[in-house]
């Protein structure tokens, strides 16, 4: 941004909270204008164009192309992992509802668990209501078009993302003894959740994925497309050795959806 080189002087006697929020909003607005929350089905040609002069990525795109039919992009707003996960899994349930009763029960119960962990009941209830509303509509077999419209409504979609974040936070705190070994920067699990999980637009890492898949009993395969030397993408299944329900594509800092 222009301000960065126009000699901005940080004044410790001033409160910058409003400006920080306003700047964050500007960045988000720019992204909102350019990218849809979840795109339509796309061919891998869009990736090929994006990485035109990059042989490492071209090879890996070829590898992905040999194993997957198409993809779907999600908005790069820091919520992409949660957004991609929610869309891909609900879409999976629309096609195959054998896991629906189990998932619905886990989803319903999650509210009381979060309240018992100390989250304010009043707000948890609000987010949980919207979360369940979306899940129930999927259970009632709405059409794909209705689902797409529902899930790309910003208000509903963001509430859904917030609730997935809370589920991750709840799981990390419940299994604190285990996850404390993976928290960086000398923080407690609770601090980590408060700073890196619960706030919107905070990017997700391995630890978020591990917690979400464990908490909801959903399995994910992530294909890692990065600058590593290999011609192929590395894969990781969450949890290890499971048969994946959904497939995500990782590029540094971003998650999209893959379809085998």
């Amino acid at each position, binding site marked *: 941004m222009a301000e960065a080189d126009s000699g901005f002087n940080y004044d410790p006697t001033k409160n910058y909270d409003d400006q920080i*929020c306003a700047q964050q909003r500007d960045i988000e607005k720019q992204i909102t204008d350019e990218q849809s929350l979840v795109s339509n089905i796309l061919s891998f040609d869009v990736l090929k164009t994006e990485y035109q002069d990059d042989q490492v990525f071209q090879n890996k795109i070829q590898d992905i192309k040999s194993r997957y039919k198409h993809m779907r992009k999600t908005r790069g707003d820091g919520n992409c992992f949660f957004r991609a996960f929610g869309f891909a899994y609900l879409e999976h349930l629309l096609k195959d509802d054998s896991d629906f009763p189990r998932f619905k029960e886990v989803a319903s119960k999650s509210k009381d668990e979060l309240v018992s962990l100390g989250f304010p009941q009043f707000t948890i209830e609000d987010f949980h209501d919207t979360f369940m509303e979306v899940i129930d509509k999927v259970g009632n077999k709405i059409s794909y078009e209705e689902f797409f419209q529902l899930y790309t409504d910003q208000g509903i979609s*963001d509430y859904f993302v917030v609730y997935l974040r809370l589920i991750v936070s709840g799981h990390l705190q419940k299994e604190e003894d285990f996850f404390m070994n993976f928290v960086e920067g000398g923080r407690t699990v609770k601090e980590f959740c408060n700073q890196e999980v619960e706030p919107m637009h905070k990017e997700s890492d391995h630890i978020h994925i591990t917690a979400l898949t464990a908490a909801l009993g959903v399995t994910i395969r992530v294909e890692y497309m990065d600058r590593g030397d290999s011609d192929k993408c590395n894969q990781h299944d969450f949890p290890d050795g499971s048969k994946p329900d959904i497939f995500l594509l990782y590029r540094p800092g971003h998650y999209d959806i893959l379809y085998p």
Partner: protein
Amino acid sequence: MASSPSSSAVKALQLELKKIHDEPVEGFRVKLINDDDLFVWEVAIFGPPGTLYEGGYFKAHMKFPPDYPYCPPSVRFVSKMWHPNVYDNGDVCISILHPPVDDPQSGELPSERWNPTQTVRTVLLSIISLLNEPNTYSPANVDASVMFRKFKESKGKDKEYENIIRKQVIATKEDSERDGVIVPTTLQEYCVSSKPSSHDNQVDADFYDDDYVDDLDDEEEMYEDDDEDSGNEES
């Protein structure tokens, strides 16, 4: 559910306002400054009994961003506040109101940041507990912070800080009389409205059971010989 980005904000604020009106809670009152604008609230915080702030009626304006509850509101005291964590212009500086980004106030202790489950109520409870327990690690008002430390380190013997606070408490009386509000000065009265609620959660339990009541005990021991200064007490 409507689809504009601020629909979440309107929905969340309407819910919160209704909840606070239906089940008033301890320590504060809220209302809209202008009935047509959900995004600016007037709040009045009651000074907690057993502290320097007892009997005080502190008014503040709370402004909500268009992307509430994803971003925090801001709180600005309208009543004069001499406090380590309140800026000259009345802006309150407290971790729970900081946006969840890495900010330049790196000297700040890792503490609870804003997240979308926070509410007006959790913010105001945090501010109430901040009144009596300033965070002197990242002061917004350095002079007040130094004065508070002297006061604390001298175990209340250095009265400069205390005298300013007591004066400001007395000055708020005009506002409470104008609004026809009787500020509770005993812990029972202060907390009573929170008791009937069946929706209590751990936040309240922590707030009253541990730190808060302990601190009240400490303060009472510490200042028991200061009665001559508290001419503001209504009895």
